[in-house]
């Protein structure tokens, strides 16, 4: 336990030193931060944007992070700060997409059948096998695509990722009250979409 805490402290110190060097002009050392956090950023972005756009968005996250390093105060750990940039870059992606008015997909008979099967699952095993099917992911994507970018961002963080309202507020750079209100509205909107009322 004590060893773990010492290792964490040593890593944090090492990271602070690395950040100091990068800010001091040793630009190439930023590559070390990319390889350190690439997987984490990929995981955040991969769950939020279409697979074909993941690499491009991850790239944008790191470029934004580099040019925003001057704003990193060190009040929160670097990985939290970077996660916030990743979440906001994905949010911007959906805002731009809404402006472009990309047509929303519709549900097919396969999807409707999946919903009926998922609702009718009698055992845990049956339910687990249903949620692993590709239709599940597509129905989720369909429902999320009908939400506003704000509702989508909050719903993903709070209801799907399971972050607290405070954490979600930090990641989005919004107030706790805004996130609380949005989270409630987003869930209400999702329920309406799933019931076919929106």
């Amino acid at each position: 336990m004590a060893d773990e805490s010492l290792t964490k402290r040593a890593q944090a110190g090492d990271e602070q030193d690395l950040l100091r060097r990068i800010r001091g002009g040793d630009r190439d050392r930023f590559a070390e931060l990319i390889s350190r956090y690439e997987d984490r950023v990929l995981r955040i972005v991969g769950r939020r944007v279409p697979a074909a756009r993941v690499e491009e968005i991850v790239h944008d996250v790191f470029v934004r992070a580099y040019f925003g390093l001057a704003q990193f105060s060190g009040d929160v750990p670097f990985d939290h700060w970077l996660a916030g940039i990743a979440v906001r870059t994905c949010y911007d992606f959906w805002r731009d997409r809404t402006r472009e008015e990309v047509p929303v997909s519709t549900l097919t008979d396969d999807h409707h059948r999946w919903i009926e099967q998922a609702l009718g699952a009698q055992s845990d095993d049956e339910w687990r096998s249903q949620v692993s099917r590709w239709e599940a992911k597509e129905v989720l994507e369909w429902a999320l695509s009908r939400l506003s970018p704000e509702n989508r961002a909050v719903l993903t963080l709070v209801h799907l990722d399971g972050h607290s309202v405070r954490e979600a507020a930090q990641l989005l750079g919004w107030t706790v009250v805004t996130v609380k209100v949005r989270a409630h509205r987003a869930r209400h909107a999702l329920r309406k979409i799933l019931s076919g009322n929106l």
Partner: protein
Amino acid sequence: MTEYRDDELQKLERALTEAYRRQPDPVPGAGLAQQVMRDIRQGASDSGRWISAVAVDQLVWRTATMAAAVVLVLSVFTVGVVRSMTGERAGLLAEEFESAPLLGDE
């Protein structure tokens, strides 16, 4: 779509949440760090060019402001000098009139 009961909606939400959490993590693409670093270098040199363009703009504006200030000071000075000269002339002219006898005085 069918109208669902509250418990059915909860079950559907739970299934979708689970489906979301079961998504496999994407595999990192090769050479991401190199691509990012290349764009950062490019962006930094672009921002350097941008900074020098801003500096030139500032220099032009400062020079123009200083030139305008000099012109203003010179104008005020010239107006002052001209006024004082015309004032003197007017004074001299007034003296001429005062010293000269008026028609009725003769």
